[in-house]
């Protein structure tokens, strides 16, 4: 016991019930911070799942679209100008729209996103879509396996009985298979089909008005240079972005327009303060309780820095004792959240580390405030 560390541990572990209460406070704080940040990140990441799956190098959108989920259309003919540039290999169009899905088991309608694209050449990574045959036949669609449960037991039914029929926008369609892409806070489910089948669901839409143009360029081309060359070819009626620009743009739009950041950011801050207050209370009580003893230590030659080390060590121990169970609990809650809101949540190393650092800061900050009480103790008063 030659350092403040040993003394700190003895003081902390002297009353196990108190230690448990203090650690529980940190556990709650760690868990809250991890869960809030996880949902925040998950909500944004999942909401741009489709944009994230684009494998096209360049993307053409309408200049009036603020997000591809609420896109306005632009003329398809603009897209066909682009192969004039030698760097452009292929172009393909994507149509998007909101339709009403009839849950065939309950007979209830629920909104669903419909994508119309060429399964063989659209530059989108939809795993398995290319292998599904017969999609070009009329009124056939593929269901998004990550859709919420509002649409009925689609996946179970596909697994057991194979393709089945339902109604979308009042039209009888066949669901032939499923691919796993992802849904967002705004969108509950998706179906994917060819542009021709898309048009069948939206008779009022014109095939010449598209939502997204996907451009593939030759390997090794400077994307920004190609983009700059293509931009004047499109004119003012369309806008061209690199895939990364689109993703950034989508995330920025969500961050500024959906209350996700604010709500969950607030939850994170609340978690931090709960932890701060609990740890501060525990350390402050501990210091106040031992004030005559601490003043005695000061009188006999212990420095204020020693007392700070003593309290900071206790704070660090509380952070560690709280972090591990808090982390595990958060992982459990991620699993529960996944099954409840059907959005995947992953624990990233950055978040684990960031919350770890926040926990240590939170505890040290509490220690710094609590130790002032010990510093104010006048050793001359011991006599």
């Amino acid at each position, binding site marked *: *016991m*030659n*350092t*403040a560390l040993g*003394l700190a541990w*003895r*003081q902390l572990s*002297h009353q196990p019930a108190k230690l448990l209460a203090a650690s529980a406070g940190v556990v709650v704080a760690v868990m809250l911070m991890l869960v809030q940040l996880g949902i925040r990140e998950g909500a944004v990441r999942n909401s741009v799942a489709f944009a994230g799956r684009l494998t096209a190098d360049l993307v053409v959108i309408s200049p009036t679209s603020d997000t591809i989920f609420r896109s306005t259309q632009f003329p398809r003919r603009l897209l066909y100008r682009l192969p004039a540039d030698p760097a452009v290999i292929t172009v393909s169009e994507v149509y998007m729209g909101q339709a009403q899905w009839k849950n065939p088991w309950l007979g209830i309608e629920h909104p669903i996103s419909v994508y119309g694209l060429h399964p063989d050449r659209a530059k989108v990574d939809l795993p398995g879509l290319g292998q599904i045959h017969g999609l070009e036949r009329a009124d056939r669609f593929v269901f998004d396996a990550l859709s919420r449960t509002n649409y009925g037991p689609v996946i179970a039914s596909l697994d057991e009985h194979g393709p089945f029929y339902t109604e979308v926008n009042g039209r009888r369609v066949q669901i032939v298979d499923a691919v796993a892409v992802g849904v967002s806070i705004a969108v509950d489910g998706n179906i994917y089909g060819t542009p021709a089948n898309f048009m069948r669901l939206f008779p009022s839409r014109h095939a010449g008005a598209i939502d997204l143009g996907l451009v593939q360029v030759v390997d090794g081309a400077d994307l920004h240079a190609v983009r700059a060359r293509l931009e004047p070819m499109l004119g003012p009626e369309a806008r061209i972005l690199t895939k990364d620009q689109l993703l950034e743009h989508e995330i920025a739009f969500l961050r500024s327009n959906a209350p996700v950041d604010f709500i969950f950011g607030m939850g994170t801050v609340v978690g931090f303060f709960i932890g701060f207050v609990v740890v501060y209370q525990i350390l402050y009580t501990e210091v106040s309780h*031992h004030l*005559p*003893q601490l*003043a*005695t*230590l000061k*009188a*006999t*030659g*212990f*420095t204020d820095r*020693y007392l700070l080390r003593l309290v900071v060590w206790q704070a660090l121990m509380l952070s560690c004792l709280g972090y591990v169970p808090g982390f595990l609990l958060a992982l459990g809650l991620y699993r529960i959240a996944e099954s409840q809101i059907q959005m995947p949540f992953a624990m990233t190393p950055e978040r684990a580390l960031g919350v770890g650092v926040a926990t240590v800061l939170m505890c040290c900050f509490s220690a710094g405030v609590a130790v002032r009480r010990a510093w104010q103790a006048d*050793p*001359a008063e*011991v*006599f």
Partner: protein
Amino acid sequence: MTPNPCRETSRVVRARGVSHSFGIGALERQVLFAVDFYLDPGEVVILTGPSGSGKTTLLTLIAALRTLREGELTVLGCDVRHALAKERIELRRRIGFVFQRHNLLGFLTARQNVELMFQLHPDVSRREARARAETMLARVGLSDHRNHPPDQLSVGQQQRVAVARALVSAPRLILADEPTASLDGLSGRNVVELLLEVARDNDCSVLMVTHDARVLDAAHRIVHIEDGAIQS
């Protein structure tokens, strides 16, 4: 009481014209008036006087716990008035303290409380610290109780642990402030005898504040303070 100039330099405590006041402005109240005082190596001096006479103030000044503004004060070779805060802390580490209340840490055993003092002396190894703590506890008759926390000891035993704590790092000076105040007559007498005995073995000077008439005969010299001035 003419100080012997030859012994002057070796004195443990030497105070000249020490005055002290509390409060400022109209509320200022002087508690010590030009006090001259000395303590020789190995000497045991008891400081008596009615409460409020300034004896505890003198003790805290010698312990470098209050800032000296008037007079000269040298303790264990350290000029307290002109010492830096860091040097005053260093000085306190060379003094053993026994307080009215033992103020032992409740979450440590008797031995750990005594051993804790060696955290101020990083040159002493952990093993040596432990051995010296055990020896000192044996010296105060608490070998069998060394692994008990303070709340399992009697008040007298607790004060003996405090004595062991004060003496364990072999200080040249012990400052004791009414060490018998919380004890009954017999155990009070025992604690003081023990303190003086161990101090004598270690050639350590003792300055003790007490009202306790039963222990006065243990001193080499009794200094009486009244109204902030030394009477004898």
